[in-house]
């Protein structure tokens, strides 16, 4: 418990320092619980997620950083490696390829990279994966774009 708390505190300080360096990520710790974090990440440019802001929820387990944080999308997103209903993310570093060399901040960067480079061969969202696997990039882009507009863009007026 002590070790994970100390580590998270260091990450907290680092996040404050890095705020300017990484304008695409806004990582915030819960006021009362250092094991709960949320992040706002910007959809990468030249992807159907561009212009969208996506919210992630982090639940950090007690053995952190020996074990990975649990991360899911709170904002609905149409992406082959994100569960459409639960927001669960299929990313190796959040499972067996996790190592303490990663941080909450670098996990956010990895998720942004995943948004830009989907892996349709290990889909959590089969509809999305199938569009890409069948080569229907246009269909995929328009679906992903639609959900970005519906769920990840601030409503006008």
């Amino acid at each position: 418990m002590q070790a994970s708390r100390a580590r998270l505190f260091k990450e907290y300080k680092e996040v404050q320092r890095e705020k300017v360096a990484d304008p695409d990520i806004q990582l915030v710790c819960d006021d009362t619980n250092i094991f709960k974090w949320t992040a706002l990440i910007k959809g990468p440019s030249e992807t159907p997620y561009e212009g969208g802001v996506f919210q992630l929820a982090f639940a950090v387990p007690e053995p952190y950083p020996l074990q990975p944080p649990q991360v899911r999308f709170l904002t609905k997103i149409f992406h082959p490696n994100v569960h459409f209903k639960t927001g669960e993310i299929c990313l190796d570093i959040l499972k067996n390829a996790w190592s303490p060399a990663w941080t909450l901040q670098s996990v956010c960067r990895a998720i942004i990279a995943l948004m830009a480079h989907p892996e349709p061969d290990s889909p959590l969202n089969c509809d999305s994966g199938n569009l890409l696997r069948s080569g229907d990039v246009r269909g995929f882009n328009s679906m992903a774009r639609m959900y970005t507009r519906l769920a990840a863009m601030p409503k006008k007026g």
Partner: protein
Amino acid sequence: MKFLVTPVSEDFLKAFCFFFPTLFVNIAECSQPLEIRSEDFLNRSSFPVTMQNQNDIVKDEAEVAASIAANKFEEWGNCSMKDAMEEPSFQEEDAAKVPYVGDKEPLSSLSAEYQAGSPILLEKIKILESQYTAIRRTRGDGNCFFRSFMFSYLEHVLESQDRAEVDRIKVNVEKCRKTLQNLGYTDFTFEDFFALFLEQLDDILQGTEESISYEELVNRSRDQSVSDYIVMFFRFVTAGEIRTRAEFFEPFITGLSNTTVDKFCKSSVEPMGEESDHIHITALSDALGVAIRVVYLDRSSCDNGGVTVNHHDFVPVGTNEKEEASAPFITLLYRPGHYDILYPKSSCKVTDNVEK
């Protein structure tokens, strides 16, 4: 000198790939996902061994693996190899029944494991019994090499109270810290692991308030919050060494897993539970400047029909000849997919007997 440098012919690799799938199926049936690595075959190629046909090799690896697996379950204690192989596949929870680091056991516990095993294995165990007094098993959770190294090293320092060795390794640890910083690792991601290892070094030297007993060392090695942190420390050190000497390690990594140095470190060194290979051992031994002897227990035999137990010494780069002549104080027993700790009767005797 290192067998790492032994060039692997393309034919050899092809042959390896050819029967690898069969191996995989056999192993998967009988035990936890023990991995058969090219290391075994590299090793085999660097010693005079009789050519066994493919089925024999497959049987060989499966048998050893099955025996290791069988030992993991107490209820399997007396069952034969065949039974062990027909047993359903390994469950992760079963590994948790074995402590991270076990008690010191007489070497006879090893032969008990192989009662129904191959005559070659039994003969090799007999040779081992003449050279080693005891074995200490570690949990087969993918961290067994690092865990064995950790305990063996700390136990040696605790028993020898070798302050010069502690001072020496601390210099290397600081070098490793610099290495990681130069590679762009964020300090706070690894410093806790470094601090905990350095703390153990100070604690095992007697004469301070924090000094710990042998029992406490055993307890700490079984306590996840210490044991896993030190394993992780070694993983950082290993990854740092491989990355800084990428040019040296690249050919072996490409030969082993057909991936880049960076990907290899990210997927096979840094994550907990990823098994170790000769690459990891070489890198850790070099980075910390600690020699490691690995004794191989498999079913290979010599041309003349005589059975010897092969071993390989991982001697850190920059070791002078005089130091190289003395046997490493860390001896590990390697059976395909798993490392345990061995205790020699006396280091010089072992050298005489094995180096034939």
